[in-house]
């Protein structure tokens, strides 16, 4: 630990998700329902964010990603970040599919380059850099269920050596057709169609497919309109037992000098998959029975970087001091002196577990 420990502030957020979002954050007032196990983003007119010359070539995921990044920069009143870090599980699969189809159909002759270029995983990070003329640090993580957490950890490291910098960090994934086919074959998704609001009542294997793009500006210096503090992030890979996960949780809380009874809310990444949720459900029951427990994946669906939706949601809760009814999962309410600390406990396919600590500012 260094003498002048950096505090990392989330100064701006920008998100496109399967629920309504705005400059006020993720308020979840009118919930959009889905009946086909696929949740897709509510999108604005992209022309309001991206110039037409650039727009014409962009795939849907690139448009969504770029727009949410711009919303974030506007929210933070920042024209050019000092660094850009993006995270995705499956990137621009649609572009890859288009390119592959062309290669196979044309038997490797007369192939056009656009879909190849737009399918690279760092295409969004490069595009944002180009558009904002950011010549600083630029990185992209593609670690499936750890991608966004790796990105946050990277940003924290960068800021430790430059507290005043502003880093733009985002996680994105698309509810793409090819991915849906893969997920179905691998039994990631429910076979029976349910309404998303009933996700946690359906006690069957599989979850529902989601998508989203959430960006944040992080800095060691708080802006006037800072949303909250990003305290810490921890990755836990394939915990074998409840004890493994529980002790990782304890170590995390201890390292951050906070006890469970001081946590005002836990945002749980339970996915509604009764097979793969077993460990997180055990943890919820054993550790969080006296803590206000919230869940979020019925609202955004499951995808590799869904934890970025939770981070946005957490930031909104801390800033607005308001907990949307639709996320409450138990009857415990936060203490009367306000919501000060939130803990996100996420998992992806019962392999990638993470803990993210958010605290109120000021």
């Amino acid at each position, binding site marked *: *630990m*260094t003498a002048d420990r950096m505090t990392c502030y989330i100064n701006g957020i920008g998100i496109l998700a399967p629920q309504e979002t705005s400059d006020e954050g993720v308020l979840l007032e009118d919930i959009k329902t889905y009946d086909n196990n696929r949740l897709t983003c509510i999108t604005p007119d992209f022309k309001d964010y991206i110039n037409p010359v650039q727009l014409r070539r962009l795939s849907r995921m690139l448009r969504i990603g770029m727009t949410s990044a711009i919303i974030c920069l506007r929210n933070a009143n920042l024209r050019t970040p000092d660094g*850009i870090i993006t995270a995705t*599980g*499956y*990137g621009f699969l649609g572009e*890859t599919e288009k*390119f*592959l189809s062309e*290669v*196979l159909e044309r*038997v*490797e*002759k007369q*192939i056009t*380059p656009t879909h*190849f*270029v737009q399918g*690279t*995983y*760092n*295409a969004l*990070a*490069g*595009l944002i*850099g*180009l558009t*904002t*003329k*950011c*010549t*600083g*640090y*630029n*990185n*992209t*993580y*593609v*670690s*499936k*269920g*750890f*991608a966004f957490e*790796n990105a946050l*950890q*990277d940003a924290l*490291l*960068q800021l*430790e*050596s430059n507290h005043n910098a502003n880093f733009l960090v985002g996680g994105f994934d698309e509810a793409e*057709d090819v991915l849906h*086919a*893969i997920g*179905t*074959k*691998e039994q990631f998704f429910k076979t029976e169609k349910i309404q998303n609001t009933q996700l946690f009542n359906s006690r069957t294997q599989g979850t529902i497919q989601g998508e989203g793009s959430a960006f944040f500006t992080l800095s060691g210096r708080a802006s006037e309109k800072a949303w909250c503090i990003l305290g810490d992030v921890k*990755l836990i*890979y*394939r915990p074998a037992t409840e004890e493994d996960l529980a002790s990782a949780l304890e170590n995390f809380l201890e390292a951050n000098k906070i006890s469970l009874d001081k946590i005002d809310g836990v945002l749980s990444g339970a996915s509604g998959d009764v097979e793969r949720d077993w460990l997180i459900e055990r943890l919820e029951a054993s550790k969080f029975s006296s803590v206000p427990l919230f869940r979020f994946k019925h609202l955004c669906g499951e995808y590799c970087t869904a934890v970025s939706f939770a981070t946005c949601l957490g930031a909104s809760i801390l800033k607005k001091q308001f907990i949307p009814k639709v996320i409450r999962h138990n009857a415990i309410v936060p203490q009367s002196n306000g919501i000060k600390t939130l803990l996100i406990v996420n998992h992806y396919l019962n*392999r990638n577990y993470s803990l993210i600590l958010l605290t109120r500012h000021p």
Partner: protein
Amino acid sequence: MSHRVFVTGYGLITSIGNDKVENFESLSRKRAGFGELSILNTLHSRNLPSCEIKLHDHELSRLARLHHARGYTRTALLGLIALQEAIDDATLSAEELKCTGLLSATTTGGIREFEKNFRAIIDLTQHGDFVQFTDTANPGEHTERIADRVGIRSYIGTLSTACSSSANAIMQGAQLIGAGKLNRVICGGAEALSKFTINGFNSLMIIDAQHCRPFDAGRNGLNLGEGAAYLVLEGEDIVKQQKKKPVAELIGYGNANDAFHQTASSPEGTGALRAMEIALAKAEILPGQIDYINAHGTATENNDLSEGTGIKRLFGTNVPPFSSTKPFTGHTLAAAGSIEAAYCIMALQHQVMWPNLNFKEPIPELELSPIIDLVQGNSLKNVLSNSFGFGGNTSSLIFSGTR
């Protein structure tokens, strides 16, 4: 206080050798891996020769010490081979591996297997042996698979920033150690050839059907290659505690963005210059203290001019000896950063500088000539390695000898 970061072992596999020793031999004897493709099934096997590893997947499985290689993509196999050599080289125990992180990079992941069975994989009615590759196309998959195999659990990540990917993995590993988050991280990348990449780069018209000529006035594009390499990075505390003998120290690194164009580098070499400057600043050394540059040198018209310009702007009239080793290995995309880092470390260990094959005439705008023969016996101390990619990603690493 930033902890110093040392390299205590490394491993690699390329078209010029299955391990460190073979690679060293080939580099020393100017033996390149360029030729017609015989393992990958592609229309372009003859008209777009590349640097292919002449081993079928089942042979790679044996090298990777696997009895059952179900679900292992070629990228994962290459990665596992290099990773195991790195672990052996650093003599890491199973206990040590439990507290080690793994950062791997790739641009394609399992796309080679995906493209073979693309239609069948996404057809819900079709089943067969190909189902083992249903969900292996994504880049993060290979990292988890090889981490599982060797018992790495504590911190895992996968990076993808085109051709600078594994350099960024090494950088991130160094930063995690420097900040005291981890004591040990294994960093690198893996990349297998595929129809996807061959046709992708061909559609950009930047592949040379002949053997590539980095920094040459008549250069005509790159050759593709495949391979993997990993470096074991350890913090000074455990190096001292366990009295390890590092092979090199990672003293500097820099990551910047050109912000010029999606696939082309700026003619002024802005991104390249920035990355190198940041690396030098981190290393706290002056340009004059760099003894050798392993350039990105893909032999595309654009890169070599841009990189060369960046080098001239930084070093002025005192450009150190430099070369690109890509005529040996081809452009191994995400793995290039770590493979070339390994070559830099080899250079320091053996006190040699590698030749830049196929060079005849300098680029007129630059008038820079790389070294064309193996140079031995120098007092090589600080070596700079560049890796630049699509999306404007520019990364530089500086290694220092530990003698």
